[in-house]
């Protein structure tokens, strides 16, 4: 009898391990799941930025000095920012670059085309992490999280015995889950 008790004591340990590892993984799961959804549908929705364009008119004639012209255009557009650059690529055209937008000015007509983007803070951050744009130490956290997911999946299989153990509903659902990528590969094509 004492021998039997010793044999089954590993499940509570496994459950405790699974639960605590699960708590640790919650934050990163949200990061990777949210970003995964966003990046999967990048063709339908830019999760990093809100992109916008607008056109408006400023009075002419504009000052011949590029800096003064830029100041006037920005004042007309009610943009209280300092330009990163003011550039005249060819006669009649002036480009005012700010950190988040560019204003293309037709100096003869006073027509301004503004093109810019506003960052979506949360999605841009989680995408940045998911795609490991920063590299450096994040690779270690990402590797650790991947290992944690493997451990969670493996421990989840065995932590609650069920009436038939792994052979019952667990076996059916596990097989079904594994069959999905295999069926997809065989139906749609494989590398």
């Amino acid at each position: 009898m004492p021998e039997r008790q010793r044999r089954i004591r590993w499940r509570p340990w496994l459950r405790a391990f699974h639960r605590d590892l699960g708590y640790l993984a919650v934050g990163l799961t949200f990061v990777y799941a949210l970003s995964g959804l966003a990046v999967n549908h990048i063709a339908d929705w830019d999760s990093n930025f809100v992109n916008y364009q607008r056109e408006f008119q400023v009075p002419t004639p504009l000052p011949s000095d590029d800096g003064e012209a830029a100041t006037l255009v920005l004042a007309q557009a009610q943009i209280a920012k300092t330009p990163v650059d003011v550039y005249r690529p060819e006669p009649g055209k002036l480009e005012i670059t700010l950190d988040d937008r560019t204003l293309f000015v037709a100096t003869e007509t006073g027509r301004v085309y503004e093109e810019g983007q506003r960052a979506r803070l949360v999605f841009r951050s989680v995408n940045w992490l998911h795609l490991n744009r920063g590299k450096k130490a994040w690779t270690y956290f990402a590797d650790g999280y991947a290992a944690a997911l493997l451990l969670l999946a493996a421990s989840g299989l065995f932590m609650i015995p069920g009436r038939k153990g792994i052979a019952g509903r667990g076996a059916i659902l596990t097989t079904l889950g594994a069959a999905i990528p295999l069926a997809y590969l065989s139906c749609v094509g494989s590398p």
Partner: protein
Amino acid sequence: MNDQPVSERCRNVARRELILKAAAGTIIVAAGGGWYVISDRLTAKARAETRPDGRPRLPPGQRVISALKPMGGQPGDPNRSALRLKVHGEVEHPIELDFQQLLAMNVVQRQADVHCVTGWSLLGGRWRGLQIKALAERAGLKPGARHVIFEAAHGYTANVLLREALAEDSMVTWELDDHPLGRPHGAPLRALVPDLYFWKSAKWLTGIRFMRSDEPGYWEVRGYNNHADPWKEERYA
């Protein structure tokens, strides 16, 4: 009289309800998806059209959209005054051109369709820029060159065959439909090779390198097709 315990009966009812609701939800989503596909007139119209070279205007597996979509990537400096385009590799005289020097060359406008590997196509965009063959001529392309590598911000590269880079409608471009290229689309300058999937048309372009041998680019070493012909659905390696 049902001799099942109450807790067991409750669980069964809840499960039945869940299955019914899931089935209803699936039908609604499928109907919505079906309606979306059927009502896509732009795609239906394009499917009926043929290109001058005899190929269908819309490659297989594509749907038509009405505006270019931002597809991510690591943006470069959008400032035109900071642009320096290097043309180098298998050329007699490597050159580096700023934006004003590009404008001073033989600027052209071409109408071209583009096809993204994710399944959308934008048809009939008016792209303004320079033909790559004009840049190759200016730099003095050597006879041994066979491949072209587009170099872009943050080390991104895309490789194309020389003959495809020198095609009539292959360009470096800075304007689409009479508006400057937007930041998400590669401002100030991107490549344009319309007859290949759009990832080959590198955004935030900084260089064109002519090569004797091929050198797979950023996506090509990550499982995407080395050639990327949309009519052959060369999406993946």
